[in-house]
């Protein structure tokens, strides 16, 4: 036997064997590395989507809007404060059954109203007695709720929080739950410098989240900025709207913040006296706050008790003569023809602000 050739071939075989093992190992490593890379990228994209920077909490006052009624400069929204407010808004820890959050009724894709629900319902098994209003442009409102019972944005969250048929909680107990939660202690520390969880900090964090909800980028707004043009029907609808609707639904907020009796037959089951509940005045019986019509196409059903399923039903109501007491401003709408009603509805469609309902800052940070 030729020893040197034998040694050489053994060496070659061993080298090939080692090379195969090494190659196999390296290949396997890179094959397995691929899914990990995807995961990291997904996590990074998610982080980018939900991250709030300083520029995200700068409030841009839309051109043509009146002076705000809430002092945002005094509130001084910060990224950490906004993130805390967002977390609280979406967290069912705020409810007595750990199941309901603000977002259960205030849903972003519906401009923070509750689409397809006539009346709010929350804590398991309960039904409210009023329709969920949209949350938009809140700093331009002087009072909140359909009857204006709440006089300041910061204390608005207390109303659903303590209502037995909404979140069914108490302020002291909610603060206790938050204090016991290490992730909330950390969020409060980031927002306020220390882990003290007080009612003022809690309410103003939610307020930081709410003040940024500005909707002023609909087709209508773009038309005013001359970025788009209306169709002929939308133009006609806009003209009719200004003639028949804007004495109450006045631009640019599409509400004049007043309380009106519009001749809706009283719901004998709900027996909701509206503004009279707050003022005690006979003239305010069945008066309700004029809602903003921004995003109205996405906030059906309509009225304080959600009795109208569609804008067609709403326009039909306004075109019908009624003997019930109602605001004289409504008289001219009776003469609208079916065609004109459709034009107005086409115009109302231009008030949808998709950038608002898809704004990533207000999205559910829990991800699904």
């Amino acid at each position, binding site marked *: 036997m030729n020893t040197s050739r034998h040694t050489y071939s053994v060496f070659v075989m061993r080298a090939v064997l080692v090379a195969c093992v090494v190659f196999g190992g390296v290949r396997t490593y890179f094959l397995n590395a691929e899914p990990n890379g995807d995961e990291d990228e997904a996590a990074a994209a998610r982080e980018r989507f939900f991250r709030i920077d300083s520029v995200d909490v700068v409030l841009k006052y839309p051109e043509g809007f009146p002076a705000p009624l809430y002092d945002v400069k005094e509130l001084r929204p910060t990224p950490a404060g906004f993130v805390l407010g967002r977390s609280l808004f979406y967290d069912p820890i705020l409810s007595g059954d750990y199941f309901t959050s603000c977002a259960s009724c205030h849903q972003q894709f519906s401009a923070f109203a509750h689409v397809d629900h006539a009346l709010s319902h929350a804590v398991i098994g309960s039904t409210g007695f009023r329709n969920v209003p949209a949350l938009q442009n809140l700093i331009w409102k002087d009072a909140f709720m359909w009857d204006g019972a709440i006089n300041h944005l910061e204390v608005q969250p207390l109303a659903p929080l*303590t209502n037995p048929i909404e979140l069914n909680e108490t302020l*002291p107990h909610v603060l206790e739950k938050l204090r016991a939660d290490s992730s909330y202690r950390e969020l409060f520390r980031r927002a306020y410098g220390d882990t003290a969880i*007080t009612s003022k900090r809690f309410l103003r964090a939610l*307020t930081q989240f709410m003040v940024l909800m500005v909707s002023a980028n609909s087709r209508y707004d773009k038309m005013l900025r001359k970025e788009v043009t209306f169709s002929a029907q939308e133009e006609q609808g806009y003209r009719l709207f200004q003639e028949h609707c804007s004495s109450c639904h006045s631009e640019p907020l599409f509400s004049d913040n007043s309380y009106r009796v519009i001749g809706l037959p009283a719901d004998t089951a709900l027996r909701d006296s509206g503004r009279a509940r707050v003022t005690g005045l006979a003239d305010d019986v069945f008066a309700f706050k004029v809602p903003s019509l921004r995003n109205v196409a996405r906030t059906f059903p309509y009225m304080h008790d959600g009795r109208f399923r569609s804008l067609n039903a709403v326009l039909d109501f306004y075109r019908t003569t009624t003997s019930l007491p109602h605001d004289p401003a409504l008289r001219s709408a009776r003469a609208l023809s079916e065609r004109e009603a459709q034009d107005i509805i086409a115009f109302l469609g231009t008030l949808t602000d998709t950038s608002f309902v898809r704004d990533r800052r207000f999205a559910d940070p829990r991800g699904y």
Partner: protein
Amino acid sequence: MLRLLRLVCMIVISVIALMGSARISAQNILLRFVPMVQQRPLVLDSLMYQNHFAQLYSVTRFRWYCTNVRILGESTQERIADVILCDAEDSASLRVSATVPVSQGYSGVSFVIGVDSLRNCTGAQEGALDPINGMFWSWNSGYIFVKLEGYAPASSAQGKKLEYHIGGYRPPAICTRSVTLPFQTISVADHSTVQIDIAVDVAQILTQPHNINFQERPVVTDFRYAQEMADNYQDMFRILAIKNIPLPR
């Protein structure tokens, strides 16, 4: 050198002594609220009181706000406190101290029962006005000015409870009431505390000018009948005693 050192030490000690004595001007006014039912101190959870209609009742909770608390001089008013929340269950809350200018001519105290409209519309606040104190209506923004709760066999409410939550800063119920309690002219110095004991008579909330019948009106928690009860509680304060307490040196 040693003499210089001694001189410096004397100066330093004198300065400290002077600073120390200047700090002794501590709080020279103490208001002490004493919850009572007519002539007797209020005892909570005791079914032993009777109203105008001889209906038995007990008191389980009694809280109230006083704002703009002042002591009245001849031509001045000196601030004692801006907002205080008193709770019959919390004796510390019934003592209000302040430092007022030295004077020989104080002749009364004044305050408002309740919270003014500006403070009612200021949103989330801290301290006495923190909504956590259970004195803020979450469903119709505004502070509860006087909260009186208890039980009465004659009550027609569920559980025989009595529940009087009186507040309101705007129509239809404005329940703030101004109170002035005059007394014989006193001096307030800076080396003693003048203690003014003020009786807070629960019975007055239930009588004059409107006598409350527990069967007809066991619960008042919104604007209906609130002003009538505010007219009642306007008279619930009176001066009990004024004492002079030298401060320890």
